């Protein structure tokens, strides 16, 4: 039983890691972000400024 749980956990962890890694690379290639650590969220200030401007115009 433990072996099965172990394999499931490893498979899920591996899939998550690979997914994150692929997403990171796609983001890099598309130039979506400006720093290496931002694979999770777009921290790019330029986009933040644009979003802010858009939000304010809508107001």
């Amino acid at each position, binding site marked *: 039983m433990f072996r099965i749980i172990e394999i499931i956990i*490893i498979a899920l962890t*591996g899939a998550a890691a690979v997914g*994150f890694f692929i997403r990171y690379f796609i983001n890099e*290639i598309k*130039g979506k972000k*400006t720093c*290496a650590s931002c694979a999770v969220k777009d*921290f790019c200030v*330029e986009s933040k400024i644009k979003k*802010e401007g858009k939000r304010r115009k809508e107001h």
Partner: protein
Amino acid sequence: MVETKDKEVIIALAGSPNSGKTSIFNNLTGAMQHVGNYPGVTVEQKTGLRKYKGYTIKVFDLPGTYSLTAYTLEELVARNYIINERPDIVVSIVDSSNLLRNLYLSTQLIELDVPLVFAFNMSDVFKKSGTEINLSLLSQLLGAPIVQTVGSKGTGTNELLDKILEVYKNPQTGKKVNIKYGDELENELSKIIKLLKKDEAKLSQKFNLRWLSIKLLERDREVLKSLEVLLEEKKYKDLVKMVENSINHIKNVLRDMPETIIAESRYGFINGALKETLKEKPQNEISASDRIDRILINRILGLPVFAIIMWLMFQLVFKIGDYPMNWLALGFSKLSQLLSNLMPTGLLKSLLIDGIIGGVGGILVFTPKVMLLFISIALLEDSGYMARVAFIMDRIMHKIGLHGKSFIPMLIGFGCTIPAYMCTRTLENRNDRMITMHINTFMSCGGRLPVYILFAGIFFPKNAGNIIFSIYVIGIVIAVLMAKLLRATRFRGEAEPFVMELPNYRVPTVKGVMIHMWERTWQYLKKAGTIILAISIIMWILFTFPRIGNAYSEDYSKQLARLEQSFKSGDISEKEYKDTSGVIEGKMAAEELSYSAAGRIGYFVEPVFEPLGFDWRLSLASISGIAGKEVVVSTMGTLFSLTTENKDSPSIRNAIAEQYNPLVGYNFMLFSLLYFPCVASLAVFKKEAGTKELLFQIGYTLGLAWVISFIVFQIGRIFL
């Protein structure tokens, strides 16, 4: 201005580089800041929040610029932000000790017709100079309130916030100021404004018509582009024709280009305003800054002093950093031991101990040293010494056809290559920019530091600081040589003239240094917790699968069983039993690794790296470094953790020390320094320079790294 429901005020900080914009930003936003990489000499663009008297004040820190023309990208970014996003208030930060030059940017902000507040920063330095100023008169002349601040001490922050809110509530507080450009120019401006007024409905939403007309007389490309889109074709053509006529008329009458006259008039305006309001004390004595500069930028002493400061910095980082690093290593060893005792033997235990703790933990143990290095760099930057370094390097850079301005991105490259690439945007000449980008990779970024710490610590424990210093110096020397080569071959031409900035020395504030250090350390930690964690898991999977099963070259289980029997029957001692079983298990682990996917990749590429002294493990670690140079360390950590019985840091280090000699260790550091930077940097490189230059960058750095490492290894082998 209508107040929004949540009373949100958007302010933008504009100012020349070294005007103390960063300290004002920190004072305004405190700990609530967001940090992101951004082009510019100060590199990091920040946004932050401040709650004050029932208002939420959002602060945008614009790139530091001297002007708002469209010559450099940062000028354009700052200008576009003000025009397109229309912040509620623009705070013009002015270095009080250099009003004439700093107010030039302010005159352009006045022309943009945005609600303004002036922050006359470094007012303590100004007061010390003995000059007196009539602030209320100057405020009237400039048409906006002035607040005196001392960014480094936080003085004037509340007054500045009060003034911001005052102007926000009543934007028409100040009188409208128009800088006069003389009759001829004013006549031509009136004609253009008259023509533009026909489309006022369209244009005035975005632009101030007078500003637009001035820009047209300056032949501002960006403004022309915008008008081409906004106006009908015929109207646009008529406008361009009229502007060209006006320019020709001005040239004929005044014998000068309109943009020169405009710039002179702006300086005239500032000069006039300062004459009215300033009472300067005659100065005969030499300032403290000048006295320090006599040594630090001395033609003969400058460079050796820089080398000594750098050397001392590395000694400090490594001698002091060793203690907290060892504590962290001990912490991770204990964690590994704890997990080892708690968990049954199996894949999950190996993933946690060998993959995650071995990989990510291997990176995290270096955090104290990284922090110390960044504190040292922040101290040098904040004190104004780094600007002197650029000045010292200016002479050398001129000899290779570049100027000191190119050295600023190189200095930034010591932190991270990405903002360094972006910072090259300040170079107006494309050839200068391309050379600077191509050589920037030789500046040792923070990501390479763990590689150096690991290998220098293992192979040169007594001289680790000196060894890493030598790698940094080699990087600078190769950068200089490559710049010379690139200038002579691919990017010919002369460097554009540029005046180096020498700001006054300042005592760095603890808060400022800590913020700079934390920004970079946080990035390092985030990377360790995200992409390096993911890669460590992937590398562990690649090192573990496919499983070898019974495909060992020898029957190790039989050998182990026989050994156990001999031990039980008393034929061999406990020590002999442990040693021999350790050797057999080591062999098994080595075969398992060779059989794994990562092992196969490593063996596949090994022939390429063999002439450099690298085995399949180092070859694989080098390849994994493409994702991020720190990954080299996490890969080595996982790899050697899998083959080492004791999973603690000293055992892994011993295992690496047994496997290679100091020559290979040094050569590996050298190779890591020279080959192209991580994929994130390459993506930025492509964005900034294009695919062709990217391919050139990858090809030439890889080739150079291989050739130099080959020479070092082959020659070193003769002596060792």
